[in-house]
């Protein structure tokens, strides 16, 4: 039977106090010491070897009270509670309740200085491992993010397809792409062409030719203000959906984006809806035979100004 907490402790001559704590041996998982509260005269650490008999509420020692008084005083700071350490299976052996159950704080740990230093050292080591990895990992992930822009001309069809002025006509075309390690593939894209009347042309060009520049400011192409054909990127400047040419109840024939219902007229001007800027005009040239060529450009959606991304 294990000694119970609060049990009276009796020596050969008289009662000396009560069991206030129990100390466990972390290896044998057995109770190794009792801590006896000496009726106001401090606490003594009594080895189990000094115990003669244990009953429900009494611990009988085989020593005299003066011998117990001479035993080692209990020092709390030399111990930790079993909740603070992990000793698997220890709890199964404890039948002492309630109160603190202790194991000795290891000798080597008692006088360790610079605990904070060692704790911080682990963080610093972690940083030394992690920080040099940040840049390579970011570069690793960022590799394909910024592709160079392609200013090649693409044939999209013949102008003869357009029958009516100031009406949006969709031209579908295929574009070859070579994405990183992938085999070359063809993607389908579309561009909207408008054969514009002088009034619409004036709305678009406002008397000035439209110049397209590359990222370093060099001219790529100039759309002449008197060329009656306009090409608009198929991507809605609102959030990048694909818009259509549709009949609108009030506004007549318009470019309408089915996603968020932005509406543009034949000159690309915003008539209604959430779009922040007009449709994006593309560089266009028309050969004598009526073949239309464009430079495929895409611009960032959702901004007032144009930022080219393709």
């Amino acid at each position, binding site marked *: 039977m294990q000694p119970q907490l609060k049990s009276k402790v009796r020596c050969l001559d008289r009662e000396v106090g009560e069991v206030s704590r129990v100390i466990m041996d972390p290896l044998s998982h057995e109770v190794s010491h009792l801590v006896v509260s000496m009726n106001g005269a401090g606490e003594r650490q009594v080895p189990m070897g000094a115990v003669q008999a244990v009953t429900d509420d009494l611990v009988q020692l085989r020593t005299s009270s003066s011998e117990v008084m001479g035993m080692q005083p209990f020092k709390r700071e030399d111990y930790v509670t079993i909740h603070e350490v992990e000793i698997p299976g220890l709890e199964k052996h404890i039948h002492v309740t309630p109160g603190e159950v202790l194991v000795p704080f290891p000798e080597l740990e008692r006088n360790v200085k610079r605990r904070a230093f060692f704790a911080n050292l682990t963080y610093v080591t972690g940083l030394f491992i992690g920080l040099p990895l940040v840049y390579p990992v970011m570069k690793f992930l960022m590799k394909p993010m910024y592709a160079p822009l392609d200013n090649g001309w693409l044939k999209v069809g013949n102008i003869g397809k357009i029958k009516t002025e100031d009406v949006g006509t969709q031209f579908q075309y295929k574009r070859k792409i070579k994405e990183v390690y992938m085999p070359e593939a063809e993607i389908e894209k579309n561009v909207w062409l408008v054969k514009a009347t002088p009034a619409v042309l004036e709305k678009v060009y406002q008397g000035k030719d439209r110049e397209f520049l590359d990222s370093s400011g060099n001219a790529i192409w100039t759309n002449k203000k008197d060329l009656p054909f306009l090409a608009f990127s198929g991507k809605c400047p609102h959030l990048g959906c694909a818009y259509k040419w549709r009949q609108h109840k009030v506004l007549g024939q318009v470019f309408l984006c089915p996603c968020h219902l932005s509406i543009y007229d034949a000159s690309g001007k915003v008539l209604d809806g959430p779009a922040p800027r007009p449709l994006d005009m593309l560089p266009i040239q028309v050969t004598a035979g009526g073949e239309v060529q464009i430079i495929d450009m895409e611009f960032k959606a959702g901004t007032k100004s144009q930022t080219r*991304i393709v």
Partner: protein
Amino acid sequence: MSDIPPAGAQPTVAEKIFTFVDERVGLKLLAAKMLNESVPGGSRWAYVFGSILLFIFIMQAVTGALLMFYYVPTADHAYASTQYILHDVDYGWFLLSYHFWGSTAMVVCVFAHMSQVFLWGAYKKPRELIWLVGLALFALVMGFGFTGYLLPWDQRAYWATTVGVEIMDKIPIMGDFLARFLKGGPTPGQMTLSRFFVIHVMVLPAALIALAGLHLFLFRCAGPAGPFRGAPAELKAKTDYFFPRQIWKDVVGMAVVFACISAMAFWEPVVLLEEATPDPGDYHPEPEWYFLFIFQHLRLKMFSGEFGQFLGSMGLPGLLGVMLMLLPFFDRNPERNIFKRPFALIGWVMLTASIILFTVSAIINREFLD
């Protein structure tokens, strides 16, 4: 526990194995700690959603892993391999459709679970951390929906991603970088598919497992909140353990959810559109239904222009998220009864009503577009 054999009987092999494991890892104690969790006020059908979410997640992981046996995350094979799963692999249509409807069930149950915690006042002290981790889990579930949507590489997938990433682009300063980072380039392509795939099958599941574990751990530290009314003595008298009454209810809930998802997968199996390309033809882009309300409210005039777009796509949803995060720290009133918290009740009703309103109007809008 009842697994102690009657005196004198020879232990069976199963009992011997159990004892062997128990001696080494304390199985009985562990099982007791797992099962003997007291439920204040007693078990209820209303408490089944957390367990159901765990069940749905496990099923998503299982069906997802199975789909990966055939699926190829490349721009030239994703669509073909998904079609192969749907049309050629035995029961492929069922597993893929189960995975699809499972994600819908996940969103529905997350909304129910969060609403319940909100209405029951269960986010209040000492359960603030459970609430915060729960919000992070909600974000992960939305991330799963968004990234998973691209993988079949059909037109629906392509355009939902195109618009979704453009929305991310509206974040001030970081937006352009984040959008390119996620797309792996200026426009959706192979890099986008690779990234969404690895996020969907590696990053998010790892994060979800970790956070769901933390969620449960914090829940076990704080304990269940219990009903919001009733005298302590009455609640104590009704208290039972997680096992068996609550587990019984949870299991029935899981079975019902399983039956519903299976039924949807059976009657409404996934059908792919044309293969993804920047030319949508006659297709009208639209996100998955649980993002429809955001999609629809971006059509409003008040969210037009550069700032309006930011407000509609990032500003207001972000503000709502921050408000939900700060909720347990500002709402210090210990009152949990929803009928004595008028602002909370009105707020919940308004948010739910507006989500339903915008979702329904997006659906009604469809027929005016053709």
